[in-house]
């Protein structure tokens, strides 16, 4: 019963998060009457609150499943190592959207599974925000998206040595772009920019998609391509030794003496 309820909570909070991120796209499907500025201004705040609630539900369920002392210690220490990398990113501006935090999140998710990957992604963003003064309404969105990157890394098939690394490189490249595509959605409805690139209440789905594509291509694509290439470059260097080290420690962490 507990597993069933946990599954329901994962599905519902995931659905709430995804639908809230995609709100600008499916909202026009409702065919509701445009209500002008009020809706335009309230939408970003409402979506931030909903994503925050979905994140809280997911976190309380994930941590509620008896996180062992070993998992907590390893998670805390890995988050510290990755946050130091984020600190380097803040101190020394790196080109475009390149950020060194995604490679460790992806590898940790791949080795330890989706639950650990989600927590690693979410906590890394939270810890580094606390350290670098980055707490703000954007934080739940960043935590959710980085959590998804770690979680989906845990779903990658462990295909053996031949395909393992190329798969992770491709995954890192894809998430370099996806992170930008997803994270832009939270502030896109808030920005009142050029008409052919701005979200407006009551637009049709194709029109909304076309406007978002134009907005993304103009403002973020080049930035995100640099992030994607940076992810692949870091994974080329780090993936093999990090997977080896983490797998060895996973075996040590899970070592237990049975009562026989």
């Amino acid at each position, binding site marked *: *019963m507990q597993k069933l*309820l946990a599954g*329901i*909570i994962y599905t*519902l*909070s995931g659905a*709430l998060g995804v*639908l*809230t991120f995609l*709100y600008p796209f499916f*909202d026009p499907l*409702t065919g*509701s*009457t445009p209500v002008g*500025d009020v809706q335009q*201004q309230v939408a*970003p705040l409402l979506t931030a609150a909903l994503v925050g*609630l979905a994140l*809280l539900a997911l976190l*309380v369920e994930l*941590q*509620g*499943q008896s*996180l*062992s*002392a070993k998992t*907590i*210690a390893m*998670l*805390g*220490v*890995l*988050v*510290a*190592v990755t*946050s*130091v990398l984020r*600190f380097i990113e*803040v101190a020394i501006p790196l080109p475009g959207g390149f950020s060194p935090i995604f490679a460790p999140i992806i590898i940790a998710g791949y080795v330890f599974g989706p639950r650990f990957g989600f927590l690693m992604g979410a*906590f890394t963003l939270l*810890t580094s925000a*606390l*350290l*670098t*003064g980055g707490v*703000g*309404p954007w934080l739940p969105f960043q935590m959710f998206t980085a959590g998804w990157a770690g979680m989906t890394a845990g779903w990658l098939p462990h295909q053996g040595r031949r395909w393992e690394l190329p798969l992770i490189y491709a995954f890192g490249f894809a998430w370099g772009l996806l992170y930008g595509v997803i994270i832009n959605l939270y502030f896109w409805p*808030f920005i009142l*920019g050029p*008409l052919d*690139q701005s979200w407006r209440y009551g637009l049709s789905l194709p029109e909304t998609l076309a406007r978002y594509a*134009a907005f993304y291509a*103009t*403002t973020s694509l080049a930035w995100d391509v640099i992030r994607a290439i940076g992810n692949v470059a870091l994974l080329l*260097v*780090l993936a093999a030794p*990090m997977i080896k*080290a983490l797998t060895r420690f996973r075996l*040590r*962490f899970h070592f237990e003496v049975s009562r026989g």
Partner: protein
Amino acid sequence: MADARALLLWAVTVLLGASYSRNPLYSLLLLLMTLWVYDTAGAADVVSASTGSGRPSPLAPLRFALIAVPLGALFNALTSHFGATVLLRLPAWLPLLGGALTLEALAFGAINGLNLTVIFSGFAAFNQAVATRELLKLTPRAFHESGVVLSIALTFIPQTTHSLHRIREAQAVRGHRLRGLRDWLPIFTPLLVSALERALGLAEAMVARGYASVTDTAQPLRTQGLLALGLLVLLGGWLGYLFTPALRPVLLGVGALGVALMLTALWLAGRGNRHTVYRPRRWRAQDTWIVAGCLLALGTLLSRRAWMVYSPYPQLAWPNFDPLTALGLLGLLVPGLIPAREKTRDAGEMGDE
């Protein structure tokens, strides 16, 4: 330093103000107030450095403004070709950019940049004024494990940074030079392995001190069920709100019920975790003043929304300004006034000792 909860309410009020205001005069007023608070919090931080309060923001608000406002104006002018006052025309064959560059589009973009700066500045001031440990104390009891993970991470960061320097020095002594990305591998691998070794030691120490020694700390079925139900009701209310405009007031209530169920589940989940504080922080008069200032500003935002509306299209005109609205918004200045007085009092107390 003011209470973290009062300052959080202040930051959220600034966020709401920036979201509501399209009038550049009020946005400018909000920006000036947040800059004042940011500056005061920074000054207070020098005095209370020993308490570890506040952290440097990666980008100061004024520097952010210098980037966001011109960039917003330029971007909007280049891509939006509406407005009566044409400054110059770009060739029509240029994709997206071709067309008239108007003064109105420049102004509109600059206002967007200004509003983004207000949000950034508000949270930069919040981050400056509230210590990391105070933020950690805001963690609800339901998130006990999350709080432990965060505490471990924050505690280990200085150690990790120290290890990084030591490993770099050791490798440099061996003749290792950092020329490219691949040269980081002999530094990163020992850093990771030493961190994981520390994690093993820490886990053993936690178990030895009885951490998670109870047989089953998983969420009780009731809490899980309530959380799932709350999510279901919230999701249903949210989808219903979007797809059935006629029933919106009812569905708003359904969504609120979902939120209430979720909050009850969180309360139940946190009830088992006892939270003790060695030196509890008292709610002081200054915190009440901050909350009162926020309420005044919130009331102004809600009751005088008409004054917040402004559009430079079709032709640029001077925005309206209502002194009463501005006075109401001045409630957000309270955190900028209080720390200076507190600082003087603290200095006096130190002198007395």
